[in-house]
């Protein structure tokens, strides 16, 4: 053992635990407004993730226990579960999580070696392969025409059957972003759309409180120095600015930027997804560029693209750019500021 002989008390598992702790406020809001189905999804995803990770590690002849205990698979599972509808059938959760862990993470080399954000890869696979199942978002409890008890929920998720007299339509409702998109296509103006019951103060009813939960959790992570300010600020600023420009151009066709911040996966992305250290840039300037790119693309896909939320694809597209971003944003090294051959862009 060489120097240094002392070290800070930190570990990967502590980081992952804090991330999970930061998600608790949002999950609590989720259950409050949309029922306990989300907890089933989270549990199922976590179990699948750990099982897949253990199997892959064994296949690759790696020690299983230290990697399972590092918590990274659990975080991937929870983030994916939070991104997909809680009323999605059990096999949707399993397929998405398995793909995320086996293909996006382990086949690329395991912890620290994956190029793409595993949760977002899982989400992309699901939304492209099972678009119908991925639209079964629950209506907020306050607005739902019918309610499922917890045993009924389990029955539906695992058995696929609903109690007599309750139809799926009574339980689900289009998300605020989805509603917005559809209604805009029907040539209604933003002002009119905003008065529909699904919308709350800033975003969607219920989901805006969940967004607030993500914000609270994110600020905790920042205070704990798990994440730096660069990614959340740049992402939210870019999303806000892009939305703001369009909103100024035509407020009846382009909804307010604050709505965009409070909707869909924006705040989840800002603090939990785009901040994934493995798949993001390592330089401060790089993080700003990366996050701004995601913010901009998210708006474009949401407004002009084919999907109601653009976070996942925006993240995956920027993941491809990360090595390039890193190479061109190397900060100046101490004592190199006057040198001609400084590695300021990492190129030979």
């Amino acid at each position, binding site marked *: 053992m060489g120097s240094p002989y002392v070290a800070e008390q930190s570990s*990967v598992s502590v980081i992952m635990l804090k991330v999970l702790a930061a998600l608790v406020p949002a999950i609590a809001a989720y259950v409050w407004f949309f029922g306990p189905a989300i907890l089933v999804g989270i549990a199922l995803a976590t179990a699948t993730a750990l099982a897949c990770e253990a199997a892959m590690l064994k296949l690759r002849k790696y020690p299983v226990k230290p990697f399972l205990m590092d918590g*990274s698979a659990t975080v991937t599972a929870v983030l994916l579960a939070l991104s997909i509808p809680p009323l999605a059938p059990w096999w949707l959760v399993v397929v998405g999580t398995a793909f995320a862990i086996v293909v996006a993470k382990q086949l690329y080399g395991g912890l620290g070696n994956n190029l793409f954000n595993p949760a977002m890869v899982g989400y992309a696979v699901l939304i492209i392969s099972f678009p119908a199942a991925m639209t079964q978002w629950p209506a907020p409890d306050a607005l739902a025409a019918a309610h499922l008890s917890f045993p009924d929920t389990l029955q539906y998720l695992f058995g696929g059957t609903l109690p007599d007299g309750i139809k799926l339509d009574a339980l689900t409702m289009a998300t605020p972003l989805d509603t917005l998109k559809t209604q805009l296509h029907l040539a209604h103006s933003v002002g009119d759309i905003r008065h529909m019951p699904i919308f709350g103060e800033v975003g969607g009813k219920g989901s805006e409180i969940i967004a607030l939960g993500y914000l609270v959790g994110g600020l905790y992570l920042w205070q704990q120095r798990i994440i730096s300010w660069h990614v959340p600020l740049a992402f939210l600023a870019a999303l806000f600015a892009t939305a703001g420009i369009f909103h100024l151009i035509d407020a009846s066709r382009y909804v307010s930027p604050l709505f965009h911040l409070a909707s869909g996966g924006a705040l989840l992305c800002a603090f939990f997804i785009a901040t994934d250290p493995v798949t993001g840039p390592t330089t401060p300037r790089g993080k700003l560029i990366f996050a701004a790119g995601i913010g901009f693309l998210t708006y474009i896909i949401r407004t002009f693209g084919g999907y109601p939320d653009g976070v996942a694809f925006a993240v995956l597209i920027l993941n491809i750019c990360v090595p390039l971003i890193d190479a061109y944003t190397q900060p100046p090294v*101490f*004592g190199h*500021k006057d040198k001609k051959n400084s590695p300021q862009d990492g190129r030979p």
Partner: protein
Amino acid sequence: MRTLHHFNGGVHPAQHKAESNTRPIVAAPVPPRLVVPLHQHIGSAAKPLVKVGDKVLKGQMIAAAEGYVSAAVHAPTSGTVTVVEMQTVPHPSGLPDLCVTMETDHEERWIAHAPLDYRAMDPSELRNHLRDAGVVGLGGAAFPSFIKLNPGPAQKLQTLILNGAECEPWITCDDRLMQERAEAIVQGIEIMRFMLRPEEILVGIEDNKPQAIAAMRAACALADFAVEVVPVPTIYPGGGAKQLIKVLTGKEPPSGGRSTDVGVQCFNVATAYSVHRAVHHGEPVISRIVTVTGNVRQPGNFEVLIGTPVEQLVQLAGGAKDGTNGYVMGGPMMGFTLPQPNVPVVKATNCIIASSQALFSPAPPALPCIRCSRCAVACPADLQPMDLYWFSRARNFGKAQEYALFDCIECGCCTYVCPSHIPLVQYFRFAKSEIWAREKEKEAADLARERHEFRQFRLEREKEERAEKLAQKAAAKLEMLGGSTDPEADAKKAAIQAAIERAKAKKAAVTPQNVDNLPPDKLKEIEEIEARRAKAKEGTQQDS
């Protein structure tokens, strides 16, 4: 108030200064035997001047500086030389080096030594005196100080900095030295000022040493030249020369250059003290202050003769407590484990820490790098340690150098913060040694290639010379015989003759083709024709 600048990064390990900085320095007794290594400094080892059996006096030069970057080594006390041999020295490799071992006679008989009138001396003479007094940097690097005391072609300096930061945890020798011998340090600074002629002199001391700051301020007030004590924020590695220069002056010494390129020179306060002893007392460097701390019963600071076995020092500190599993020389961030406890104290030994499981618990097994970039945030040299790690591990040394591997000061901040417990600084040390080894190989290969090419050239040349000589000899002989010496005419004749022979051979060699599948009567016909032709040829040949 002076504006201070700051450097990026740095960490705050637990300081552990109070264990050893509350008691005054204790003079260590003379041990029965001293083992004095001859290579205690950066540069070439000193050449031994004594042999077995020689009686030496305290302060006598026992090895002379060899080459430019070198310093002399002296007998720490009077006695008899017993061995001049390889012994284990305090070096991370554990390899032995040449040492002069001597039995001490406890009489402490000094060589003749007297103060120098340094102001009347020629500057280079004064520098040589310091080299011959064995003055080297006592902050840990042990670079021969006389070289740094050369003001260079500019003949002056902007800022002279004295480094009293002592940023590593556990080490308190400079703290006690400043508290107890501040005036002597300032007298050393005065001599340095005479040699370097700086515009300003600053003494940087971390603000966790209020008594040292007070003592140095009092001593500086008595000086008849301007010297300012500047407290700096306590952060590791604030005592690194480059970092301290940045904090005090805002300038960054250029990579690959020297601090004098920005008009700054930096010395440890203990070095200033030894300059004072060398000039005002004529004493060479034969002892230093060493902190003995960690898992010992009475940690403290000792004034120790060079060559004292570390084991003895540990006994002075009350002995090692149970659970001691080794000794670290230096601090916990940049020190190294001694190969064995009876290695000698050398000029670079600022601290000995008795380690144990409780104090320095072994690192958990390393996980993969998750690119969290805490290491980059902590790096005081603004490097990207996670990228250097990937490149070093992949043995991609070209890229590692592009990412400024050699600007790494090996402070250990990156390893300190890594949540995956990756021994980052070990990878960088490995990469640096690999690159150096390859450079050496390349130089050797280049040299071999040059020699080979020259050899080829030489052989060719000799061949040509020989051919020429032979040709000349042949020409001379031919002339003697009187034959035509015109090579062209000869060649023509030979060609014509050869053509005639070829034509004859062609005529004689005309043979029928495609005879294999002919019927027997045709074959007979061909035979008869051949026989007649042969006869005819005989006839013509007889004629010509």
